């Protein structure tokens, strides 16, 4: 054979399927030999032409042969599936659950963690946060922003302050969330408006910023998406603002991804170069930076570090030791909090899919026994083992393909449910079954088919043909039994890991809900009111307004208490301020004592159901001209007055000329900044006596809490009416019960817990089905053996115990493996757990016991069937 013919044969072997080659390879080689001989005798050109035609012919026809075989295999697979509808339905349902769960969670991961942020080159953008020994991330003050902007060479700096404005001049006044930004904010983010322009630098000057940018949704709502919105005027806080631009539809401010009430309008931030030194401590600005070309984030951070060291030198006493500022990459800022939870869920659904694969593999192995004769006959008439393995794998692909379609439908429902259950998770609303997700689904399906199909395929390749044809029933091999038992053990182990994880999260969530929040949520209506600057620049008019409003609301039928605070617990965060006691002189870095501070009106504590431990609460008589008073919480009393009664003692907040305040009352601790965050020292300052820490920061926006004897939402309309009696252009917003406030605060934890519980339940059901299925099949195989045993005198009880022991062995092995695996893996849940150790022994034991009970239940039915075998019938069947 010449080298050319050998090459030709090698190509045929490489390209064509085996079935074709068995029939035609030799003949093709003989034909090519004759062609090659003739071409060689003609010349090199003829030989080259022959090779060209041969190669193109092979390349053109080989794929068609493969496709023809695939069509054959798919048609055969479909026939087999139709012949066993029960098996097919169970397999598809099992796989669809695993594939669907993976698709749903991946679509969440894709939307939240993978999809690019809607900004230009977001990897060059970072948040700039101050950090203090007591606070890892804190905003910048106006003087700090101006200093950073002036001195930093490696980055462009922009800032944002949150706020709200009242929109008037329409049928109903409306309160809109607003963001105040520097003129270069959108350049730093890398966002262009779809209409008009963003802000000019001159509009940062005081009095020059009567312009507004609309978000896309507001533009649609207020102007029906008309292009002539540009140049129109809106009345915001009783001032006219000109619309200059509209932002893109998919635009979101970095801190508002997942926000329930994102900013509706964007206004220029007034930069005040003459900002006083006192305002260096007012840290309210969210600052973003874009690293300039030619610089790296590391260089930028080094530059920031140099400037913060200069701050300390230039402003003695202003900065604590340990103060600094850090650049945090934007993506991590937006989704960092949810990354661990999403990755845990992705791991969980992977386990569910593996369990589903093991289940289907077991079903296929059992069915392989039933198909043994068919396989043997096909082998006898010429089908090679490779061909049969290919057939089995194709059947697996068809099964996986149909399951994938069902899984995508399931995923679609799951994603809708997830979006509803946790509306506050950043970017979760962008979840969709897009091409990336579908490609992931396809990849998972193929992998699934290979995983669950390979075991039956390997089993098939090893089958002894003669045994099947001659014996009339397939011989039971202990190896096959061992494999099936191992699969059951694997399923049980994986299910146990998931169940323990779900149990830990459920415990954590329950503990979170039962943590003493410090206030009573039942029957309390809350809403927010924000007064405009015009007419309310000073404290007194604001105090009078809220006094009158609260008096009218208290007069409503069913109202038992009403009060207001600058921000509600779990809805806003409160910051700390340092204070000192009589006789103490603040050091160069201020006082060592600090407390979270809150501004309240009379009636607030009563309406929130906060417990008064000692003394009294503020009343209307604690006015601006009366002696200054303050209420503290129990944590402050224990920390700073351990040996004496705080009532009657005095404290003074740091900075400027502030009055000494007499402590009049001690209340229980309130978990304001999160249920999982223990309350630290807190001070409650009566609004009528509150001296702002920074100038021009009169507190005008308050959250009002109204305690009722019945359904709190029933008085919402009446409460709105009482506010409008005082100012008909004043809207109320964020109307909800206090129960809803808590609900929203724990929504992410609830979603994690519900999802993991759902997946764990699915895993438990699959593992139970797997255990039942394998044992039921083994009972069928051993019918003769039971018949013989009973004929020889074995009692039903003996058979029952024997079968249960056999069925429970893999389950027990799985539980032991699962306990060990869970002990390692549940540590990954640590960041998601509240007051629950990841290796809580009681949880492990209780969950393992439950799973064993479920396995026992799954074994009982087949075991009872074994005891009902009629010995005479069983022996005759042979």
């Amino acid at each position: 054979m010449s080298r050319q013919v050998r090459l030709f044969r090698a190509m045929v072997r490489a390209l064509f399927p085996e079935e074709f080659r068995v029939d035609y390879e030799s003949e093709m080689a003989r034909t090519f030999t004759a062609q090659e001989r003739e071409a060689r005798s003609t010349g090199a050109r003829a030989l080259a032409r022959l090779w060209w035609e041969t190669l193109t012919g092979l390349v053109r026809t080989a794929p068609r042969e493969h496709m023809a075989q695939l069509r054959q295999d798919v048609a055969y697979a479909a026939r087999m599936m139709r012949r066993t509808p029960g098996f097919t339905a169970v397999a598809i349902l099992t796989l669809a659950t695993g594939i669907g769960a993976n698709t749903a969670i991946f679509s969440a991961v894709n939307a939240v963690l993978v999809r690019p942020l809607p900004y230009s080159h977001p990897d060059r953008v970072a948040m700039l946060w101050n950090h203090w020994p007591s606070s890892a991330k804190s905003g910048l003050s106006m003087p700090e922003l101006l200093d950073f902007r002036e001195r930093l060479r490696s980055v462009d700096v922009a800032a944002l302050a949150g706020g709200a404005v009242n929109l008037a001049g329409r049928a109903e006044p409306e309160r809109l969330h607003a963001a105040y930004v520097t003129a270069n904010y959108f350049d730093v983010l890398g966002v262009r408006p779809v209409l008009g322009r963003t802000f000019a630098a001159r509009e940062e000057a005081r009095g020059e910023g009567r312009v507004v940018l609309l978000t896309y949704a507001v533009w649609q709502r207020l102007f029906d998406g008309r292009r002539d919105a540009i140049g129109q005027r809106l009345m915001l806080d009783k001032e006219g603002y000109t619309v200059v631009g509209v932002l893109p539809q998919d635009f979101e401010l970095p801190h508002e991804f997942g926000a329930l009430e994102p900013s509706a309008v964007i206004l220029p931030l007034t930069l005040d170069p003459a900002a006083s030194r006192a305002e260096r401590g007012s840290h309210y600005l969210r600052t973003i930076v874009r690293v300039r070309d030619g610089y790296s984030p590391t260089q930028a951070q080094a530059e920031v570090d140099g400037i913060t060291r200069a701050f300390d030198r230039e402003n003695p006493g202003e900065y604590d030791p340990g103060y600094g500022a850090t650049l945090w990459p934007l993506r991590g800022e937006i989704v960092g909090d949810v990354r661990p939870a999403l990755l845990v869920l992705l791991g969980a659904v992977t386990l569910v899919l593996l369990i589903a694969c093991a289940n289907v593999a077991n079903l296929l192995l059992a069915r392989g026994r039933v198909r043994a004769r068919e396989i043997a006959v096909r082998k006898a008439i010429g089908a090679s083992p490779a061909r049969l393995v290919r057939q089995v794998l194709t059947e697996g692909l068809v099964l996986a393909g149909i399951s994938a379609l069902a899984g995508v439908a399931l995923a679609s429902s799951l994603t809708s449910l997830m979006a509803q259950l946790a509306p506050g998770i950043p970017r979760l609303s962008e979840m969709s079954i897009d091409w990336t997700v579908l490609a992931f689904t396809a990849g998972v399906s193929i992998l699934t088919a290979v995983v669950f199909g390979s075991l039956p395929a390997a089993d098939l390749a090893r089958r002894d043909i003669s045994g099947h044809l001659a014996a009339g029933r397939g011989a039971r091999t202990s190896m096959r039994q061992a494999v099936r038992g191992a699969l059951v053990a694997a399923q049980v182990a994986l299910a146990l890991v998931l169940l323990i994880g779900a149990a830990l999260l459920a415990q954590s969530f329950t503990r979170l809900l039962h943590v003493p929040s410090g206030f009573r949520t039942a029957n309390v209506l809350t809403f927010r009111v924000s007064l405009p600057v015009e007419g309310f620049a000073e404290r007194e008019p604001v105090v009078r307004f809220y006094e009158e409003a609260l008096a009218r609301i208290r007069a409503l039928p069913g109202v038992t208490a009403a009060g207001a605070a600058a921000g509600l617990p779990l809805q806003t965060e409160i910051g700390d301020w340092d204070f000192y006691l009589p006789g103490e002189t603040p050091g160069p870095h201020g006082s060592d004592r600090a407390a979270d501070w809150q501004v309240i009106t009379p009636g607030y504590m009563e309406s929130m159901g906060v417990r008064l431990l000692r003394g009294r609460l503020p009343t209307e008589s604690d006015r601006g001209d009366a002696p200054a008073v303050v209420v503290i919480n129990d944590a402050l009393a224990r920390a700073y007055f351990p040996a004496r009664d705080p009532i009657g003692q005095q404290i003074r907040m740091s900075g400027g000329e502030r009055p000494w305040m007499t402590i009049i009352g001690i209340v229980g601790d309130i978990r304001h900044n999160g249920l999982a965050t223990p309350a630290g020292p807190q001070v409650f300052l009566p609004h009528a006596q509150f001296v702002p820490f920074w100038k021009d920061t009169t507190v005008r926006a308050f959250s009002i809490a109204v305690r009722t004897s019945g359904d709190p939402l029933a008085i919402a309309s009446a409460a709105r009416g009482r506010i409008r009696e005082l100012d008909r252009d004043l809207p109320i917003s964020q109307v909800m019960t206090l129960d809803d406030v808590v609900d929203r605060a724990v929504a992410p934890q609830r979603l994690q817990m519900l999802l993991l519980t759902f997946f764990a339940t699915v895993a438990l059901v699959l593992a139970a089905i797997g255990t039942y299925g394998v044992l039921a099949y083994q009972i069928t195989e051993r019918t003769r053996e039971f018949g013989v045993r009973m004929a020889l005198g074995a009692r039903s009880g003996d058979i029952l115990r024997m079968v249960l022991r056999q069925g429970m062995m893999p389950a027990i092995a799985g539980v032991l493996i699962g306990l060990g695996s869970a002990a390692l893996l549940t540590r990954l849940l640590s960041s998601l757990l509240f007051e629950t150790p990841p290796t809580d022994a009681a949880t492990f034991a209780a969950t393992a016991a439950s799973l064993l009970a479920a396995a026992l239940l799954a074994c009982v039915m087949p075991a009872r069937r074994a005891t009902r075998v009629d010995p005479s019938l069983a022996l005759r069947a042979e």
Partner: protein
Amino acid sequence: MARRSFDPQPYLPLTPAMFQVLVALADGEKHGYAVIKEVHRRTDGKVRLSAGTLYALIKRFVSDGLIVECDERPDPSLDDERRRYYRLSDNGRAVALAEAERMEEAVGHARAKLLTRKPRTA
């Protein structure tokens, strides 16, 4: 004879290569190389079959019952190696005829529209 119940229409139209292979087998049994040579000669080299193309067609025609595989025997005109011979079945003949009629009809339509030169008269 083709069975009365056999309908060649589902097999049409044939590609040029498919038609030429059937025609090549119309006048007797041939092995694969002989088919390649005959097609090359009959079409003046316009249809050139490679081994891969030919045997893919043969497999399909055998599967569809249009050609029948005969026994192997040596070809003394070649290297005397044993080769597999094929012949046209009645159904295959019907398909080839149907294709020829289809092409004749198409040529007729073209001539009717004056799209082709009229055949030269003697």
